[in-house]
């Protein structure tokens, strides 16, 4: 293709289909959270629309790419597009990490009487300004005033699943780096092996994360368990959602590698997904350190 010409794709309906899919998914999710019996079905419908959109949209872009419609200008557009997407992702997680720091370092201590708020705790009988992985599973205790409270009895195990999950995700960063190296060296079989290992590690992470949620929920840590429960589930839940998206994208890239869509010096699709996975990896490392340790 002539370098002077810029390929402009024809009008496409995939973005609006994607938007309808996401909206349907979240309407279903929100209603599921509120106990609506039809929430799950609407969620499944939204997910099906999203999968349909991914097959259609990805397929169209791949077809345009392999038929040689993209020149270096289009390549630059893709790189900038991915970078702005990443910028929005960074700001998204920055907001939730910001909420974690604000609640933990400022608002909860204030409510507990820090600075010039010494009488604030007196406003609510039995209020306890705490921030920890404490499990409330002993109902029935009462204060002197007769108010029933739950008593913290044990701590969520930091050494167990969270540490194992961190190791799994960090290892997936290593296997992905090996895949990246194999792609740059043009060793296709090695790329496939390392990519499969990365995907398996990602799926294992998600499985253990679901197990961890099961333990935490069973022990009494819920979205409604005060500001700690809210920020814990918001941060780790959205991270888990990103890992899911990353696994889907890596699977698409695996398919494209098998089809021979990438070469040692032309593989932006792989680079974009690889960077995204490294980013999701670093977000988890930040979560592990700031939620569980510092």
């Amino acid at each position, binding site marked *: 293709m002539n370098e002077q010409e810029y390929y402009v794709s024809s009008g496409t309906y995939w973005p609006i289909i994607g938007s309808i899919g996401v909206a349907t998914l979240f309407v279903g999710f929100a209603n599921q959270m509120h106990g609506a019996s039809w929430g799950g079905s609407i969620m499944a419908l939204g997910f099906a629309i999203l999968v349909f959109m991914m097959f259609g949209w990805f397929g169209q872009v791949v077809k345009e790419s392999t038929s040689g419609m993209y020149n270096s200008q289009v*390549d*630059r557009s893709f*790189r*900038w597009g*991915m*970078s702005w997407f*990443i910028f929005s992702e960074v700001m998204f997680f920055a907001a939730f990490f910001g909420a974690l720091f604000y609640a933990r370092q400022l608002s*909860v*201590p204030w409510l*507990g*009487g*820090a600075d010039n708020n010494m009488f604030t*705790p007196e406003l609510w009988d039995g*209020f*306890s*300004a*705490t*921030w*920890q*992985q*404490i499990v409330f599973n002993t109902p029935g205790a009462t204060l002197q005033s007769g108010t029933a409270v739950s008593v913290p009895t044990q*701590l969520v195990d*930091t*050494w167990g699943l969270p*540490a194992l999950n*961190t*190791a799994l995700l*960090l290892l997936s*960063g*290593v296997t992905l*780096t090996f895949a*990246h*190296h194999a792609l*740059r060296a043009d060793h296709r079989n090695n790329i496939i092996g390392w990519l499969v290992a990365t995907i398996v590690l990602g799926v294992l992470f998600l499985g253990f994360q679901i197990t961890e949620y099961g333990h935490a929920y069973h022990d009494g840590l819920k979205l409604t368990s005060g500001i700690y429960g809210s920020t814990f589930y918001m941060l780790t839940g959205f991270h888990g959602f990103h890992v899911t998206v990353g696994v889907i994208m890596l699977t698409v890239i695996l398919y494209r590698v098998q089809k021979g869509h990438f070469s040692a*010096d032309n593989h*932006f699709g792989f*680079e*974009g997904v*690889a*960077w995204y996975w*490294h*980013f999701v*990896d*670093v977000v988890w*490392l*930040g979560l592990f*350190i700031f*939620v*569980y*340790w*510092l």
Partner: protein
Amino acid sequence: MTQIIIIIIVAILIALGSGLLGMLRGGSSGSDKMFKSLVIRVALSLFLFVLVMFAAFMGWIEPNATMMAGSHT
């Protein structure tokens, strides 16, 4: 110990950001920069994880599970 952990996290973020700039630049030099930066970010992340686990094992840091100062019970 906390300061060392924070410094390594900042270094990881810088390596990740450098990888992003490499990806944005494209071409063979950008691709090299991206790959090298991501290798550094993986190595630093592994080092940090091992360091945190070792520090916890040695008792230099403790899980974030203590009651906050100023709590009212």
